C-alpha cells in the first residue's frame, strides 16, 4: 500500500468493516509510516472514548426548579391561548337568543337595570370620598406624587359586573384564629369569598387569589371587608395590613382600598396598605396608586411611601412632601410580603374544583421556612392550596438549608404533612458518621501506590495521623497531617489521597484520626 490510509479507515477496521487482507495491508503501511501510525492510535483512542461517553450521565440538576418552570410555562401558554380564542367565556348562541326572545326575561332585565341604577347611586353616595380619583393617564403620574389632581368622575357602570370569587390559597400561622363572616370555619380552604365577606385574622396571615395575577394578603391582627367584589368594582375596607398585587385588569374596572378616611385607588400592580392607631401608610412596590381623602389626593409611585397620621389630611400644598422613597430593606420587606398566587388560574370555580389544601404542620414552636415544589412559601405551620398530584415538601434546618421532608400525594381532599422534630446536633454522632465516610471513601489503590516505594524497601506498619474539618455541605475545611513516620513525599501523596475523599451533606465535624498503612 503506497498511499496513506484514510483516518476513517482505521475506525472501519476497529468496527470490523474491513477485510482481513486490507487490514493487513493497512497495518503494514502503518508500520512504515509514522503519520499513519499516529493516526491509527488517535482513532483507536477516539473509539475508546466513544465507549466511555456512551455511559456518561448528566450532572445533577435543580430538578424541582426546572419542573416548576416547565409547569409555569406550559400553563401560562395554555391560559393565554384560551384567553385569545375565548374558549372559556364563549357563550353559545342559543342561550343569547333564548334570553332575548323571552318577554319575561326582557321585563326582568328592565327591573334589574333599574335596581342596579339605584344601588349604584347609593353605593357612590356612601363610599365615595369627597375627592374622587380620576382615571389616571400616563401624564398624571409623577416621581414625587402630585397634590392637585383633576376632579374625579367615577366611571359609572351601566350593568352590574360579574361577581368575582376569592379563593384562599395560603394561611400562615395559627389558621384556627381566622374568622370569616364572624365564624371560625372548620374548612378554611372551602370558603369562597365574595361581596360582603368579612375576614378577620388574629394570629395568622391569609392569602386570597381572585384572578390571574391578582391576589391580596391580609396580615395578622387585621380585618378586611369585601364591600364590592365584581368585575366592575373591587372595594376593600381594611383595618390592619393588606398587601395587594393586581394583574392586568379590564379598563373599566376600579379597584379601591379604603383605610379609615383614606381611599387608595389602584393604578399599578403591587402595594401595601397599613391602617392602625398610628394612621395610614401606603407603600408601593411597583406601579402607581393614588391615595385620597376628603381634602386632597397624592399619587404614590413605585418604591415610595406615604404616611398619614390620624389627625392629618392630604390637603394643602405640602401633601406631596409626605411621599418619601423606600429604602432597599423596606423594598425587600415589601417584596417578601407579596401575596401568593397560583400559576394555574382560570376562574375561582375551576380552581376550587382542581385544587386542594395542603397543611404543613410543625411539631415545635420554632418557625421553619417551608418550600413546596422548590418554591419558598413562608414559615410553618402553614396551609396552602395546591394542585392534585405529588408534591415535594422541604423545610429549612438550623443552618437555613432546605432538607427534604417528604413527598405528599394530594388528591381532591385536604392533605397534611407533619414536619419531623428537629434533632439537636450530636457532636459525637456527627464525628462517627464523618469518620465512617472517610474510611469508606479512601481510594486504597491510590494509597497503595503512594506507599509502594517504601513497602518495596521493607518499611511497613506505618501510619498517618490527620486532623480534618468537614462542614455540613461535605466540603473539607482543612486537612493537616499532624504526625507520621513516612517520608515527606509519601506523606504528601497520602494526604492528597485523603483530600480526594468526597463527603456528602451532613453534620459538620472536626476530628483527628490515625490511619494505619
Amino acid at each position: 500500500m503506497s498511499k496513506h490510509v484514510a483516518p476513517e479507515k482505521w475506525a472501519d477496521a476497529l468496527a470490523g468493516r474491513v477485510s482481513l487482507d486490507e487490514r493487513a495491508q493497512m497495518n503494514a503501511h502503518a508500520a512504515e509510516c509514522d503519520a499513519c501510525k499516529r493516526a491509527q492510535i488517535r482513532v483507536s483512542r477516539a473509539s475508546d472514548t466513544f465507549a466511555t461517553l456512551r455511559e456518561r450521565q448528566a450532572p445533577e440538576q435543580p430538578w424541582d426548579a426546572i419542573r416548576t418552570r416547565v409547569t409555569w410555562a406550559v400553563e401560562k401558554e395554555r391560559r393565554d391561548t384560551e384567553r385569545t380564542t375565548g374558549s372559556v367565556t364563549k357563550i353559545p348562541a342559543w342561550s343569547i337568543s333564548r334570553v332575548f326572545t323571552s318577554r319575561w326575561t326582557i321585563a326582568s332585565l328592565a327591573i334589574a337595570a333599574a335596581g342596579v341604577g339605584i344601588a349604584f347611586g347609593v353605593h357612590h353616595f356612601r363610599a365615595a370620598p369627597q375627592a374622587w380619583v380620576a382615571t389616571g393617564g400616563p401624564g398624571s403620574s409623577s416621581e414625587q406624587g402630585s397634590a392637585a389632581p383633576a376632579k374625579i368622575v367615577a366611571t359609572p357602570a351601566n350593568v352590574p359586573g360579574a361577581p368575582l370569587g376569592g379563593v384562599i390559597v395560603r394561611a400562615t400561622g395559627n389558621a384556627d384564629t381566622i374568622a370569616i363572616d364572624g365564624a371560625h370555619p372548620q374548612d378554611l380552604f372551602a370558603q369562597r369569598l365574595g361581596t360582603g365577606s368579612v375576614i378577620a385574622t388574629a394570629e395568622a396571615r391569609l392569602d386570597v387569589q381572585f384572578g390571574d395575577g391578582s391576589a391580596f394578603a391580609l396580615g395578622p391582627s387585621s380585618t378586611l371587608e369585601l364591600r364590592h367584589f365584581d368585575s366592575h368594582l373591587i372595594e376593600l375596607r381594611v383595618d390592619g395590613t393588606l398587601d395587594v398585587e393586581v394583574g392586568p385588569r379590564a379598563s373599566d374596572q376600579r379597584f379601591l382600598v379604603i383605610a379609615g378616611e383614606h381611599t387608595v385607588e389602584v393604578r399599578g400592580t403591587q402595594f401595601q396598605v397599613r391602617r392602625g392607631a398610628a394612621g395610614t401608610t401606603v407603600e408601593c412596590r411597583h406601579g402607581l396608586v393614588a391615595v385620597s381623602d376628603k381634602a386632597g389626593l397624592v399619587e404614590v409611585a413605585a418604591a415610595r411611601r406615604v404616611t398619614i397620621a390620624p389627625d392629618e389630611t392630604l390637603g394643602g400644598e405640602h401633601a406631596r412632601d409626605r411621599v418619601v422613597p423606600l429604602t432597599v430593606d423596606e423594598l425587600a420587606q415589601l417584596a417578601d410580603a407579596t401575596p401568593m398566587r397560583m400559576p394555574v388560574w382560570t376562574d375561582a370555580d375551576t380552581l376550587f374544583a382542581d385544587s386542594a389544601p395542603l397543611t404543613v404542620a410543625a411539631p415545635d414552636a420554632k418557625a421553619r421556612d417551608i418550600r413546596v415544589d422548590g418554591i419558598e412559601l413562608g414559615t410553618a405551620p402553614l396551609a396552602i392550596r395546591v394542585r392534585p398530584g405529588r408534591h415535594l415538601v422541604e423545610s429549612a434546618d438550623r443552618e437555613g438549608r432546605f432538607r427534604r421532608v417528604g413527598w405528599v400525594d394530594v388528591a381532591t381532599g385536604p392533605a397534611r404533612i407533619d414536619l419531623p422534630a428537629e434533632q439537636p446536633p450530636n457532636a459525637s454522632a456527627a464525628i462517627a458518621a464523618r469518620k465512617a465516610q472517610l474510611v469508606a471513601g479512601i481510594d486504597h489503590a491510590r494509597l497503595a501506590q503512594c506507599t509502594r516505594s517504601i513497602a518495596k524497601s521493607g518499611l511497613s506498619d506505618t501510619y498517618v495521623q490527620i486532623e480534618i474539618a468537614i462542614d455540613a455541605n461535605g466540603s473539607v475545611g482543612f486537612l493537616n497531617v499532624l504526625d507520621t513516620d513516612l517520608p515527606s513525599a509519601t506523606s504528601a501523596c497520602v494526604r492528597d489521597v485523603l483530600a480526594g475523599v468526597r463527603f456528602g451533606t451532613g453534620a459538620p465535624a472536626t476530628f483527628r484520626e490515625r490511619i494505619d498503612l
Partner: protein
Amino acid sequence: MLPRVKRETDGYAALEPALEADLITRCRNRERAAHDELYHRFRRPVAANLYRVLGDRTDLDDLVQEVFVIAFRGLDRFRGDARLSTWLYRICVNVALGRIRTRKRKPPAIGVADLDSTAIDPSMIERPEQPDRSLERQQDQRRVYAALETLAPKKRIVLYLHEIEGLDLKEIAYLVDSNPVTVRTRLFYARREFYRAISGDAALDPAAPPGDDA
C-alpha cells in the same frame, strides 16, 4: 411503527406500552400528576442525552426545561407512531441541534467543553480513578468534542448518533427528520471530517472528494 431507538431511556425509564398510552392520555387531559410522572421518569435520560450531545453542561437546566416545554406543548400532536421515549429523544436532538447552531454563532466565553469541571463538581465524581488515567480520559474526551465542534451541526448530530449512541441509519433518520439516504451521505462526510480532525493530519486523506455540507 417506527423503530424503537435502542438506548433512549437508559434502561430505568422504560415503560410498558399500555402504561405509556395511559400516561399520554392523562397528560393530554392536563392531569398535573401525569405531567409530574412523565417529567420524573424522563428527566435524567433527557439531561444525559443533552449532556452527551453537547459535551458541556452550560445551561443544561434551561435545555432540559425547553425539551419538556416542547414535549408538553406537543403531546396533543403526538401520533404514537414511535415510543414516547423515542419521541422525547427526538426533541432532545432538535433542541441540541438548535443549541449547537446558536453556539456556533456566539462562541462561548470559555472552552468548548467543560469536561475538566468534573474536578470541581462533587456530583460528577464517580469512582476515583488513577490521576494519570483520569487526566488522559479527560484529554481524550476534550479532543473528541473539539473535533466534533469542527463539523457542521447536522453532520455533528448524525455522527454523534451513529458513533456514540450506536444508532443505525433508519433510527437516525427518524430522529433528525430526514431519510436514510441523506443520513448515509451526511454520515460519510462527517466521519471523514471527524477522523481527519482527530488524526490531526489533513495530508493523510489519500483521495478527498469535494466537501459537502448536506
